[in-house]
């Protein structure tokens, strides 16, 4: 469960990105955060992943107060989150499979088990045939799917995606959204930030609409 109450976020420099935000996302829910560019969608997701901290208010994720979390506890929070963020960094010096293996190495998985899991994750996003390729040889849509595979390989309970379909054409975007829907159907809580309204029509999810850092109707 994710719960915001009276959350404000002011970046250094004085810009107030989020104002008095309060909402709750239940387990297994699928929520799309919409709003104009600069509305605060990315900031909202970053608060959940403890990439940014709230200026005031509380952000609770799975019962933990993320805003006040010690730095040494943050890694363990992130292992429960799948993050598909903008300007997502794929590691271009290693294969597709090795990119997906990284989160499992981080958690110290047994090597053989890790290989199985990573291939299962690649299979779910339709990239199993490309496991030995270098990410640079993948198309934009395939790279985005690789990011998703990397985000879900640790079987997180919450998946956060920031503009996952930006710069993809409609067919690719549709595929990506289908993948998210399939994860949601097996019980993963999914939060997607997008300014692409066509996503909303397609999936008919719950929508949080941000307008200049505040929740609209």
């Amino acid at each position, binding site marked *: 469960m994710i719960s915001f109450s009276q959350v404000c976020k002011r970046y250094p420099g004085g810009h107030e990105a989020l104002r008095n935000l309060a909402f709750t996302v239940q387990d297994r829910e699928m929520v799309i955060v919409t709003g104009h560019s600069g509305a605060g969608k990315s900031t909202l997701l970053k608060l959940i*992943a403890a*990439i940014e901290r709230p200026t005031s208010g509380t952000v609770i994720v799975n019962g933990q107060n993320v805003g006040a979390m010690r*730095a*040494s506890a943050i*890694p*363990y*929070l*992130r*292992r429960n*989150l799948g*993050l598909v*963020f903008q*300007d997502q*960094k794929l*590691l271009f010096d290693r294969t597709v499979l090795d990119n997906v293996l*990284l*989160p499992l*190495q*981080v*958690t*110290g998985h*047994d*090597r053989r088990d890790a290989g199985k899991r990573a291939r299962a994750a690649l299979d779910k996003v339709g990239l199993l045939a490309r496991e030995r390729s270098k990410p640079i040889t993948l198309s934009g849509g395939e790279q985005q799917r690789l990011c998703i595979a*990397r*985000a879900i390989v*640790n079987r997180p309970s919450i998946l956060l995606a920031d503009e996952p379909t930006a710069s993809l054409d409609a067919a690719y975007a549709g595929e990506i959204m289908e993948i998210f829907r399939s994860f949601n159907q097996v019980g993963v809580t999914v939060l997607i930030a997008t300014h692409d309204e066509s996503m909303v029509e397609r999936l008919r999810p719950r929508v949080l609409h941000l307008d200049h850092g505040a929740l609209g109707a």
Partner: protein
Amino acid sequence: MSRWLTQHAQAFSLALRKLAATPWNALSSIAAMGIAFSLPAGGYVLLENATALSSRIDSAPQLSLFLDPDAAKADVAQIESRLKEHPQVKSYEFVPKDKALARLKESAGVADVVESLGRNPLPDAFVVQAKSPSADVLEGLRKEMTGWPKAEYVQLDSAWAKRLEALLRVGRIAVLVLAALLAFALVTAIFNTIRLQILTQRDEIEVAKMVGATGGFIRRPFLYYGALQGLAGGTAAWGIVAAALWVLNGALGELGRLYAINIHLAHLSPGDSLSLFGFAAWLGWLGAWMSVGRHLSQVEPQ
């Protein structure tokens, strides 16, 4: 426990692969470190050998009183009675010239030389043990004896040993200072190497943090890298010293054959070698640890 071991093994092999990925860079910095560290290590080895040599020499407070070659039996008796009554003299031994020559003949190598002389060039002598080892007392005694009739020359046997001891002390300080300076240089070098690595691996570190890597997981490969590089540098220094000793011992062997003496310079003892390796590895680790503490926090997911 096994997960912990796995993670360390992974970090270790990652560090090894990083070293192997840029073999020329790695080799040249290892060589530079090795050469730098071979100076204090080599200095230490020479000092240890000199110390071993000086401790083999009897450092009891001893004087040799050489008599005039034309000293008569009566002169010898007179000096002997003076020695007997002197409050600072503990014991003495009379070494007549024939006995001195016989002793000299016993020592290897010089026998031929002595034989060729034809007549005995050595004077009668007294070997005197003083009661006090104090340098002042010994020096006073030496001056006094020099004034005795028919005493040609009095030599303070421990004087040169003392001088050597003082010299060795200075040498030890020099080696320490040199080691400290180079240790500082090594830590700085590793600090910068690791800083560059962190910069070039920004993306990897960011991704690792995104997927929940702990600080330890991210730090470990860098720490191993630093320690490995330091260890390799220490090993190179050890090898350089070994090679230098091999060459020196060859030359000394040649010299020794000419003078029928046996001088062999020993390398670092196993304990000292281990200390060298451990210290070098620790320095590398320290440089990496400082660099990681300084630079890793600057790499955060955006």
